[in-house]
Every structure is written in C-alpha cells, then in structure tokens.
C-alpha cells in the first residue's frame, strides 16, 4: 500500500535472551482503525513501544508517511510526527492538576494564560468523548477516580494544538465501566475515516470487533493472522490466537496422566464457597497450573494461600513456600551472598551448637550448585553477580531445600532463558515425584503441559478447570476471553 501512514518492515526486538518480536511487518492506512489482539507476551505492546519511539528495534525498521525513520527516532520525534499512545500503565503525574498534566505533555501550552487554554482544550475533548465526566481542570489527578484518570489519559492525546495522526490505545478500557467504554468506542467510530489512524489493543474482543476495520492477531512475537473487521467473529479470533502455529493442535498434556486421587490433600477448600466460584484443591505430589490472562486473580490466589492463617476459604496441610514473580523486589536478599540466599529458609539445619557453621552452609549450597548448575565464580559472591536465570535457580534451591509440602510459584520462569527453564521443569517433575506439590501460575501456555490439573481465571474467579491431559490451548483461550 503506497499511501500507508505506517509501514513496518520486518521488525525484530529481543530483550536479553527472550525474543519479543520476530520479523513483524504491518501497514496502517490513514483513517484506519486497526485492532491488535493476542495473548499476554504476544508482542503487541512491544511493537507499539517501538512505533512510539520508547525503544528502538533490534532489527528492521519502519516508514512513516513513506519516509524511513532512522536510529535517532525517539519519543520526541514520534510526538512531533503526530504519534501518540495511551498505555496500560497510566502516565499521569498524580500530584499535578489536570491542566498542569496537559502542560507536561503538550509544551505548546506556554506563556500568559496557558493554564486557562490547557484547561479549556482538555475539557472540550473530555466533554466530547465522555459527556458527564465530572473532571475539573484545576483538580489534582490524585483526587480523580481510576476511571476518570483513564478518561483523562485518553482525552489528553486528542487535546493538543499539534495534529494527531496515529493514536495507539493499549487496553484503554481496563479502568472504564461499560458506559464509558461505549462512549469511547462511539467516539473512535465517529473519528476514524478522517486523517487519524487508530491502533486498538485489547483483550476485550467484543470491543475490538466493535471498532476495528481490520484485526491483526499476534502470537509469540509474530503475526499469526489477519481478518477484516466486518464479518470477523470471536471464535475465529481465538482460533487464530491459539493453535494455528502450534505444532501439535491437540492437548498440551504430555499424555501420561497420573492418577493422584488416592493421595492426601495438601490444600483443600474449606466449607462451601459463598459465591459459588470454583476453588483450587491440591494433592500430594500434584502440579496445579493457574492459567488465564495476566492479572486476573492468579497472583492474588497465591498470596491468599501463602497467607493461610488468615484464609477462611482453604484448609492448608503443612508448610508452604512462595517463589515470587518479581525476584528483584520480593525474592532476593540483594546484599547477601549466594550461600546465604540459599540457606535462609533452613538456617537451623546449618548450625552447629546453635551457631551458624560456614562449612555446613557451603555444603548445602554446593550440593545445589552441582545438581542444578548455578553458574557462579564463587558461592560466596553477592547474589546480584548472577544472571537473572541463575538468580532464579537460587530461589528454587532455597525453596526446595526447605521442608515445605507445597511450593507456590508466581510465574517463576519470567525473563529466564530456555536452558534454565528446562532445569526448572526437570526439578518440578522430580520433586513432584517425591511427593512435593506445586501451584504454578504461568503466563506461558507451553508450561501448562507440565501440570496435572489446570484452573483458568477470569476477572478474579476460576471459570474453568480441567485435567492437564485435556487442557488444550484453545479450551484455555476460550475460557480466558
């Protein structure tokens, strides 16, 4: 298409060892609303970050209005070319007023009376998109509700003296209620067809279907399909998101189902569920997977289980440990050595005459280094001297060395290289064979094949559960959306 506003040519992007985008090509015509869908980690947000100049691609490039954009392309240039984005994480400064936030993002509001002009500009757009919004220009953003902040974030992109050419909306309705979401969709439908192009990213497929002229489906950093907006159906989109590029379209499970029904329960639902929502149960030696889109209540369940003394919903038999998803924030003791990071849970075992014995500590951690291959020059080095994957191995060693009956894992392979992942899978297999149980929240569909049972989350509740051998990618996607 010669007159495309955006023409992406074979963009790839990798972060360390993980490939977020591989060879993606895409065009966006002026006035078009392009829907972009796919599972978490499919590369949608990464692609848009590249377009908006937040980081450069590893390979490939793109044309705007037919002109190639080079290495100096950044947020400022993107902005001056009329490309703006509304991202999932709100980018407002909460301590500033509505008008002041306008000034931060649109420096053309300067000189005498800028406050009035900025306020008028944002109010005009807010009134147009979200009538009855209740926002005032001199209100501090922290006093707005989450929904109002989201409305402001969207309106801010339109309320500028400079021309808007492409607006990227990344999950714009996550904080909006049904009514406001409809207002936004109506507005997009009114504005498209002019000079402004839209990219609409959402897990809410009905919204994408309601406004997109064309829908591109992404999976694993590639484009896995494209459909015309008119005539597309949810089922067709879900099909494209899932099994199409998957080698084996059948069940994820590895086929050898284990019968654990005679084993004792480690985690059992207590009493009757009040809301009638599904609940998790875990038997000795069982590996339970938690699936669904990110942020739909999986981590909350893990924390509730870990906080078992205050949990009225479950009977927990025996000690639990937790492998957090954010190891930098919740997992590591960043000032300590590798040895100390491994033995912290079992320090009574490395004491002799009630005093910590260095040689016992070393032998415990040395055993783990040899069995799972922690790549460290010396075990007494600081934990942060290790690569991310090796830090994660240390966390596993710490939890597996403990006598916990069950281990709760919050997406433990996030940002971990393939080799380490294989080691982690092996450890989980071996330990579950020895009777240790796992509750495993993962954002990677492939990892669910290691699970005996899979629970699918949506909007904070379990909406489906299935034996691992029956869990197909399609079935999980269908329950997730």
């Amino acid at each position, binding site marked *: 298409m010669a007159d495309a506003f955006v023409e992406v040519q074979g963009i790839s992007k990798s972060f360390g060892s993980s490939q977020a985008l591989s060879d993606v090509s895409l065009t966006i015509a002026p006035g078009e609303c392009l829907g972009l869908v796919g599972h978490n980690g499919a590369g949608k947000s990464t692609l848009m970050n590249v377009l908006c100049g937040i980081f450069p691609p590893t390979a490939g490039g793109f044309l705007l209005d037919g002109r190639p954009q080079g290495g100096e392309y950044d947020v400022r240039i993107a902005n001056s070319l009329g490309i703006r984005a509304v991202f999932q994480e709100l980018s407002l400064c*909460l301590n500033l007023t509505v008008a002041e936030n306008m000034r*931060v993002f649109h420096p053309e509001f300067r000189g005498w009376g800028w406050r009035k002009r900025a306020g008028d500009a944002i109010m005009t757009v807010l009134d147009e998109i979200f009538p009855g919004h*209740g926002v005032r220009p001199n*209100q*501090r953003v922290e*006093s707005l*509700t989450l*929904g109002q902040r989201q409305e402001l974030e969207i309106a801010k992109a339109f309320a500028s003296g400079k021309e808007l050419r492409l607006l990227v909306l990344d999950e714009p309705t996550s904080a909006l209620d049904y009514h406001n979401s409809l207002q936004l969709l109506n507005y997009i439908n009114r504005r498209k067809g002019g000079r402004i192009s839209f990219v609409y990213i959402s897990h809410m497929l009905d919204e994408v279907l309601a406004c997109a002229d064309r829908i591109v489906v992404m999976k694993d950093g590639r484009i896995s399909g494209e459909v015309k907006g008119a005539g597309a159906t949810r089922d067709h989109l879900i099909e494209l998101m899932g099994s199409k590029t998957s080698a084996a379209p059948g069940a994820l499970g590895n086929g050898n189902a284990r019968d654990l029904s005679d084993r004792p329960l480690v985690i059992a639902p207590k009493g009757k569920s009040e809301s009638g929502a599904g609940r998790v149960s875990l038997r000795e030696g069982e590996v339970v997977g938690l699936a669904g889109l990110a942020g739909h209540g999986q981590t909350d369940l893990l924390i509730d289980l870990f906080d078992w003394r205050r949990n009225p919903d479950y009977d927990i038999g025996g000690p639990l440990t937790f492998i957090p998803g954010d190891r930098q924030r919740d997992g590591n003791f960043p000032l300590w050595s590798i040895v100390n990071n491994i033995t912290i849970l079992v320090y009574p075992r490395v004491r002799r005459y009630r005093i910590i014995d260095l040689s016992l500590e070393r032998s415990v951690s040395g055993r783990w280094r040899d069995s799972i291959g922690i790549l460290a020059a010396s075990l007494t080095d600081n934990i942060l001297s290790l690569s991310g994957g090796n830090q994660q191995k240390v966390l596993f060693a710490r939890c597996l060395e403990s006598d916990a009956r069950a281990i709760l894992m919050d997406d433990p392979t996030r940002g971990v290289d393939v080799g380490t992942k294989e080691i982690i899978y092996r450890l989980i297999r071996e330990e579950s064979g020895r009777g240790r149980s796992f509750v495993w929240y993962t954002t990677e569909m492939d990892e669910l094949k290691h699970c005996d049972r899979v629970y699918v989350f949506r909007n904070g509740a379990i909406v489906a559960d299935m034996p691992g051998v029956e869990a197909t990618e399609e079935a999980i996607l269908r329950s997730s959306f």
Partner: protein
Amino acid sequence: MVRSLDARRGGLARYTESLVPVVSLLVVLIPIVWRQPVLISPSRYYAMQTMALALAIPIVLASLGQMLAMSIGEIDFSMENLVSLVTCVMGAVMSRNVALGILLLLGILVVYALIGAFIHLKKLPSIIITIGMSFVWTGLAITIQPTPGGNIPAIASDFMRLKPPWVPYPIVLAALLALAGHFLMFKTGFGILARGVGDNVKSIQQSGHSAIRVRIMVFALVGLFGIMAGVSLAGLTNAADPLLAKNYTLLSVAAVILGGGAFAGGKVSAAGTVFGAFAMHLVVHLLVVLKISTDWQAGVKGFIILFALYIGGFFKRAGKIRYI
C-alpha cells in the same frame, strides 16, 4: 452526582491541609505574644520585634532550598554546612577580595548543578552524596575561617536591616519569598516539571522532557537558596562561623513537611514552607519566653517539632485511588 461530591470532599481536604502550617505557627506565636505583649505593640519595640523575627529569614531561605530538593524527591543533608560555609566566605573572603568571594559562591553553584547531574546519572540517593558534601563544605569553611569572627561586608548587614514603614521588614521579605517560591513552583514550566519528576519520572521522560536537565536546575537552585540563606545569616549576625547554621538541615526539612510537603516528592507548598520555617524558628523563642530551663530546652523543642509534624501528618491524606 457521586463524582461531584467526591470532588468537593477532595477540595475540602486540600483546604484543611493548607491550614496546618498556619495553625502550627499560631500555636507557637500565641503563647509568645501572651507572655510578651510588647512584641505586637507598634513603634516602640519595633527594633526588638524585628530582631526576633529577622533570624527566621535565613531559615526561610534554607527551607525554600530544601523544598526544591524535596519537590523532586531528594533531600539536601548538607544545608547547614553550606549555609555556614557561605557565612565564612562572606566574613573571610568577601571583605578582602570581592571577586574571589563571588567566584567561590559561583563555584558552589556549579558543584550543586553537578550534584544534580550525578544523582541522575549514577542513580545514587541524594542523601549519600549530600552527607558526603557536608564534610567538604565544613572542611572548606574551617580552612578559610578556623574560628568564629570575620568581617561581614556592610552591604549584607545593611540590606538585612532595612526599615520599611508599617510592616516589619522580615514579614515583607517572607511574603516576597513565599510569592516568589509559589510562582516558581506553580506558575512556571520548570516548577511543573520538577513536581512531575518528583511524582513520576517515567511519564516526564516519555513526554519528551529531559529529567537530567530538571535535576540539574533544581539542585543549582538549592545551592542558590543556600547561598542566599548564608548571606542573610551573615548580614544579621555579623559573624562568620563554620558552625553558625547548626540544625538548619533538620529545621528546613521539618519546615517543608510542616508546610504540607511530602518526603516522597512531588508535593510542596512555598507559602506553607515559609510558615513552617517561621514556626520552627519561633519554637526556640517560645521556650525562652516560657522560661524553660536550658537543661530541658533541646528535649522540649524536639517534642514540639514531633508534635507539630504529627498533627500535620494527621491532616494529610495520601492520594488513594478511588474506584467509584
């Protein structure tokens, strides 16, 4: 409907919050005036009340400097050392060699700008860098003025002793400083960016602004306010002393917090800070007026400051997200 009610409640909370520094100043001021009514009687004791208030001006200036640092979520722990050093520069250098004195003060400004750049580039907390710098400043001060003394240029002391009609000079100065501080933080693009950096650096950078530039400018201004505090303190006391501004660091931080600022950054009030600084200064005076024995003064002063900060914190409400 629900929304507009919420908005009004937010406005009311903001109103009580801005009253805190005024109330705490009154809490300190009323007992002073009650015990020493001469302080508010016109004309006769004009000179005396001016002196009682005038020593608040250096604290006001140091607090406004601290406020700038705290607006971007940083803190200057070398404030008292800087202010003392400036009195030494005024007393030992400026009186003999004006050019060298000005050069030294400009040097301090450059160092402060570099501190801002360093904090940005090395992602180091300012508390570490400024504690380190506090030793540098004191070392320099002792080198140029080993014992208290010095000869302060007449222009500084003359300026601090102006006598405008009707209103005491310190009040005029404080009002002008509050206005200037408010204009800087709330009316200029720089002030908005500084408060934005204190709240959400990422969004400032994503909107195409340079965070390092903001941090450099903020710290240069912190240095400038510290220098002005030192010049005014030297002018008022006619003394150069490496320890003259003792306690200024913590007093200035307390003044900012009392004035409605937040440790976490992003939230400041220039007028509140000026009120807070006056309250901090007058706490000392109050103890003298109440005839509290010097043995107890330090402890009681600390207790009053803690109490004022507690009351202030009580009125403050963090910006919690509301979903409805």
